[in-house]
Each structure stands twice: as structure tokens, then as C-alpha cells.
């Protein structure tokens, strides 16, 4: 269980001052049995226009592979500083990744979308493996991934 204070990499406007307007959110990623080595996952948020807002988590420690998280790499220019301090291990097939963090209330029901790009060595790059709008109503509803992720849920 990982506990994070307000996804520090998110742009300051979205971080609630003093955490008063934030709520604890749990992200749960269940990996599929995709038959390969541990997958890299980039979890990030875009706004209503599709522009990059900030990163929430990077699963996978070696930045030389980040280019395979193609959408994330394009949006950030491959900037490792975007995931400074919010990086963990890659996630193996069939495993579960659970992240707890305080997210600003303003992120919900405001057109923001949470994305997960995925990739594994010698396998396909899967940008936009998950793309789910952040809404209060969507909490607790599992979303299926395309290739690596069996399902993804965020909940309060």
C-alpha cells in the first residue's frame, strides 16, 4: 500500500492548499496474464483539451525504457523529472498494483482523464492502455485494459 500526499507532480492549481479540499483516492491496477516480464506503467492525467496535466505514478525504474510509454513520453518530452519521487517497481503479469494518494477535489467531474500507458520488454507498446474520465460517479467501476491490464478501478 503506497500512501502519497497529493501527487506532488500535479500542477499546483490542482493540489488542494492544506489538503482541505482533497480526498484520499485508491487506484487499483490488476494485471492480466500477458505472458511476459514485468510491465512499465505510466499513470498520468490530461485535461478536457487532451493536454498533459501531470503524472501520478511511474511503475518501472529505468528511464531508458520510458520511451516505450509512447504517449506519456511524447507529452512530457520524456522528462524524468515529471515522475521524480513517484516511481516504483515494474508490475509483473497477474500482479496487483495499489496506489493511495490524496487528489484535489477539483480533479473530479471537471473533464480530466486518467491515462495509463503500458509496455513490456520485447512486447508491444500499449499507450492509452487505460483512459478513464475522473468523475465521482465512476469511482468503484472497473475499466478493462487493452493488453496488459485486466482491470483498473479508482475509489474513494
Amino acid at each position, binding site marked *: 500500500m503506497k500512501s502519497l500526499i497529493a501527487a506532488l507532480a500535479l500542477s499546483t492549481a490542482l493540489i488542494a492548499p492544506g489538503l482541505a479540499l482533497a480526498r484520499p483516492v485508491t487506484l487499483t491496477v490488476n494485471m492480466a496474464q500477458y505472458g511476459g516480464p514485468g510491465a512499465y506503467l505510466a499513470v498520468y492525467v490530461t485535461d478536457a483539451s*487532451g493536454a498533459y496535466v501531470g503524472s501520478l505514478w511511474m511503475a518501472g525504474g*529505468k528511464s531508458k525504457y520510458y520511451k516505450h510509454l509512447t504517449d506519456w*513520453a511524447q507529452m512530457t518530452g520524456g522528462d524524468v523529472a515529471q515522475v521524480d519521487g513517484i516511481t516504483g517497481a515494474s508490475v509483473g503479469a497477474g500482479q496487483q498494483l495499489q496506489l493511495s494518494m490524496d487528489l484535489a477535489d477539483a480533479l473530479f467531474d471537471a473533464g480530466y482523464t486518467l491515462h495509463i500507458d503500458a509496455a513490456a520488454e520485447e512486447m508491444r507498446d500499449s499507450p492509452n492502455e487505460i483512459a478513464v474520465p475522473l468523475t465521482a460517479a465512476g469511482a468503484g467501476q472497473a475499466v478493462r485494459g487493452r493488453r496488459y491490464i485486466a482491470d483498473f478501478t479508482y475509489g474513494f
Partner: protein
Amino acid sequence: MLRQIHRWPGLLAAALILTLALSGAALSLFPALERLSSPAAVSGQTVGDLAAKVLAAHPGVEQIRRSPSGRITAYWFEGDVAGAAVVDPATGQDVASADQGAMQRWLTDFHRSLLLGDAGRYGSAVGAVAMLVLALSGALLVARRQGGWQRWFAPIKGPLAGRWHAELARVAVVGLGLSAVTALWMTASTFDLLPSDEANPALPQTVSGEVGLSPAAMTALQQTPMADLRDLTFPYAGDATDVFTLTTGAGTGYIDQGTGEMLAWQSPGPWTTVGEWIYLLHTGDGAALWGLLLGLAALTVPVLSVTGGLIWWRNRQSRPRLHGMAAASMAETVILVGSEGGTTWGFAAALARAMQGHGQGVHLAALSSFAPQTYAHAKQIVVMTATWGNGDAPTSARGALERIAKAAPLTGVPLVVLGFGDRNFPAFCAYAEAVETAARTAGWALPMALDRIDRQSPQAFARWSRAFGDLIGLPLDITHQPEAPQSTALRLLSRKDYGDSVQAPTSILRFALPQTPLWQRLTGRGIGRFSAGDLLGIVPEGSTVARLYSLASAQSDGFVEIVVRKHPGGLCSGQLLALRPGDTVQAFLRPNPGFQPDTSKAPLILIGAGTGIGPLVGFLRANRGHRPMHLWFGARHPQADYLYAEDLATWQADKRLTSLRTAFSRMGRRHYVQDVLREDAEAIRRLMAQGARIMVCGGREMAKGVRDAMTDILHPLGLSPASLRAGGRYAEDVY
């Protein structure tokens, strides 16, 4: 020092290096297999054409990749189901699964991280560092052993394990060193220790907004040859703002899906380009043949490990233990040893035991540990040292000259130097001389002139020990027979007798080649591989002292042959000449690399008298390449001791022997071989002008007569036996 650097990584990291080498060798097969199993490329095909074909077969295609081997893999979605396959570039149709085999994935993971994640990657890197140190120090050792880099591929001589080690290493070292360097680079890259400058162009601000153009109609894709392709990523279906992303060896760019124009392009920086080459050099991915060569180089590692371990073990075993040894600070006699193969240790231990027998406290140590300030109770210091190569320090004496030069001498403590070597080498006892000079310069008292022991002669050592005993006032007379390598029984096949009528009974004795299992040969037991000119040690019954005979045959002849003359009262020659076919003697091999023909095509002048013809006959018998070989042979009487007369006639007929001149001392003009040489002075000078090499074998008197004759003959050319010997063109085997 170099040897220490080579030894310890080899011994400590052997298991790790073996693991990496074997898994690497197995992995080297995969690029070749991939190359063989991939559908053939279509010549002249463009990326646009390929993309259109794949798109037709898989409308949901997202990405097309081309591996360095040329294999094309397509990734797509059909409905919600992800699909991937190797495709035939000619048709765009699937031909094989895109998934890497579990075996290859496991091996890759094992090779680079020992299945232990990042910690294992560091472990593998340690193995690569050890490999690199071994490769570099090993290359320097081979160069030193061979006498310079330009002689890198010259034939290697010596005991079996050492020869195999050097033979394999000098071929494989480039591959092994490169594998290690590239592995370290890749590890550094993985841990972000190298700058990253991959192409990552900024996304275009505006696109045409149109969709639906066929890739085959896109200029940017049509202008890109298939062979340059690395990766082509398609835009998201239904997203008119998205673009094609094209990556080639030259860079990455974005292509408008409506117009097919290149919107942005960026080339990677130098670090990325170098990194790609490093990857190719390490994995052979995209250079399958190179990969296989690297794999072969890696396969030498098990053999190098075993032979290297054997060399170390045998050197260790050869250093004797001295019971009741005194500490350096307590000993009255300090014996310091410079030894390469360990023989000198044997003499040193014999001296130490003899001194102990007289109640002396003795300290025995390697010459490289020379530290006179610690020898608080020393009454005398004895340095016994061999010479390595061209006058260099042997293993256990590395750095001794510098230590002698630096340390203050002990006043009133005499230092005695005894050299060991082989008179056939130009640098006979040169290192012992260097030690003596260094000690004299440093101010040591040297009451005894430097003595030199030729070819481990027990007699010469006993003589020296008596003189040394006189010096220190102890009655010493030490008989030390260097421990013969385990001897092997040789069975006599046939004998040919000569010389009875001239009171010089002489026989050519031919023994069967003993069958020795490989393992025994590697561990130094049995008769090793031998050439004519090497020495056969025979231990006569009733004696511990071996006699050495020059071999008149090589291993490839399939028999062991020596020529023996009976000496009046001679124990060994008497026993040998009494042998009947079927009888056996105990024998061992001692290599004699100083008396071997070189491998050039220059003429050889062979000069022998009596039994000295033995090794020369061996050279002639092996001369199937018809190198010009001229023999001058001296005997007593053509009807009595004209050894090998029929063979010499045969070889002259089949051109193995170019010319033959004989001298008989009990007939006609009563000539010796040196007299005939003088008669043939003009011919000899002509041969010398062609670069001829001279090899002399016989008794001490005869060799001296030949040397004198040659001095006169060569004088007009400005040459002398001494100058030729220094250049490796005048070799003697004298007994």
C-alpha cells in the same frame, strides 16, 4: 604483478564468469535463428508499401516494428482483442507468433541479472569487470610470453595446460574483451549513468485534420526504404489530430495522416548512436555471424578456466613446504627465491634443509618479498633465482630489483647470488646478473662471485654448495636432484647398433609412444607432447639422478627415439644399451624450447657429431615442407658409427635433406666436422647471406671446435656465433 592481476579475478570470479559466458554463448544462437526463420526482405520495398500491406491484412494495426535482424512484427487490435504477429513483408500476412520464446527470455534475464533483478545486474557487471581485467592482463601476458605484440601469433611452446590456455586466449581475447566492455556500457546505460539523447521531437502544433490517406500514398513513408525502418506507430483510429510516428536509424519524426508530409523530425544524439552499436556488438542482433563468433569466443571460457586453474595449482604445488622454518626476523640464513616453474624452489629447499641440519634457523621466501630491514638476526642472505624470457624477473621475483635498490644494505651480512638457467638461451642467468649488479650498486657485500647452474645440474649445484659452505664455515655438500616429473614406462620397440669396432658402442633406441589419457596429460603426468630436440629424462635403476637425452623424434612420428653411446662405467648408458625389445625404462619429458628450428623458410645449417646427430635427424625427418636443410656430420668411421646412413640417403633423395657433408676421424684424412666446415666456408657464407640459422649438437669439445671454425668463417661477413646467438640464429645443444 601482472600475473597477480590475472590470477585473482580468474580464481575468485571463475564461477560467475563461466555462468555469464555459457549463457552468453547460448544466447548468441538466437540472432542467427531469427535471421534464418524470418521471411525474406523484398528488395526496393518502402515503408509506405509495407504499411499499406499490413493495414490491408489488419485494419486495426497500431504499430509495425523491424528488428535489427530484419524481422517485421505487427501489433493490432481487432475489436477489443490485442493481436501481434511476425508478418511477411511481401504480403503483410502473419507468418509466426510475435512472442519471444520463454527460453530466450529466461536466458536473457539470467545472463544480465542472474534472475536477481537490479542486484543481479550489479553481479553480472562485476563478472564483466573481472572478464575485462582478465582479457587485458592476459593479452599483456601473452605479448610478454611471445616476446612482443608482433609475435602474437608465433607458435606457443611449453607444457600442455599453459599452451592450450595461451592458444585459445590469444584468439578469443578480442571477443571476450569486447563482450565485457559492451556489457559494462549497457549496464551503465540501464542504470542511467550515461547521458540520454534519444530523438524525441516535439509534437506538431497543427495538423491538416484530414484522415484516410493510404500509407502507400504518403510521400514521407514512400521515401523511406524498408531497410531503414525501426518502428512505425499508427495514429489512434478516429483521432484526426493524431499523427504517424516513424523511427528509422536516422531519427524520429511525425507524419500527417491526411497529407503524408513529415511534420517534425529529430535525429538522435551521439550517445544513442554509439549505444546502438554497442548493443549490436554485444548481442549480435542484426549481425548474426558476428554474434556466433562472439558465442564461440565465450565457449573458450570453460577451457580457459580449467587450464588456468591447473596452471595455478601446479605452480602452487611446485613450491615446497619447509618444516620448522624460522620467521624472517629470527632466521640466521635467509634464502630468497626467484622461480618461474618451481624448480628453483626445490634447490632452495634442499639448501634450507641442509642448513637446518647444521642447526641454523632458516627463512625461505619469494625474492619479491625482499625486506632486509626485517632480517634482524640474519648472518647471510642467499638469493637463488631463475630468469624469465629475455632477462626478466621470474614470477616469484617481481619487483625485487626495485626493492633491492631502495632498501638499505645490512652491514656485515654477506649476500650470495646463485643463478639458474639454460645455457642455450641468449639471456642465460641474465636476471641473476641483474640482481647481483643491483645488490652491488646498493652497497651489499658480495663475497662470492655469481655462480650459474645450467639446466638444473645437480653436480654444479653440489659444487656451489661446497664453495658456499667454505664461505660460511659449514661443511656443506648438497646433492639435489630436481624432482623429476612423474616418469612413465617406455617400452623398447627396436634398436640399431653401431660403433663396436671403434670402441664406441652406440645405439639408436626406438620406444613405443605411451598412451596417456588427456586428463593425465593436462595435469602434467605421462609424456607430454614433444618435438625433436626436447629432452628425454631417464632415471636408471639404482640412482635417483636422471640423465637427459636429446629426442630424435617428434610426437607426430609415432615413436620416441634417442641415440645413446655407452660410456665406460656409465650407469644409465649401460642399462640403456642392455635393453632388449619389449623391455621398459622409466622416463619423463623435459621441454627444450631453446633448441628447436624456427618456422621460417630460411636455410638451416645442422652440425652434429656422434650421438649429437639425434635431434638433427628429427628435424630432417619432419622436413616435409622441403625447407633447405644442410647437414654436416662427424663420426669415426663410415663402416662403424655412420648413424642413420640409410635414412640420410633416403631423405636426400626425397629432398628433405638438401646437402650432406661428412667427416670421419678414423679414416682417410682423419677429419673432424669443424675441418669440413672450414673447407666449405664459401658455401656456408652463401647460406648465411640467405638468412640461414645454425644448430649445433654434440659434445662440449666438438661444439667449441665448431664455434671457433664458425668465428673464422663468418668473420668476413661481420658476423660471429655470439652475435648470431643474440639474434636467435645460432643454437647449441651441448652435453
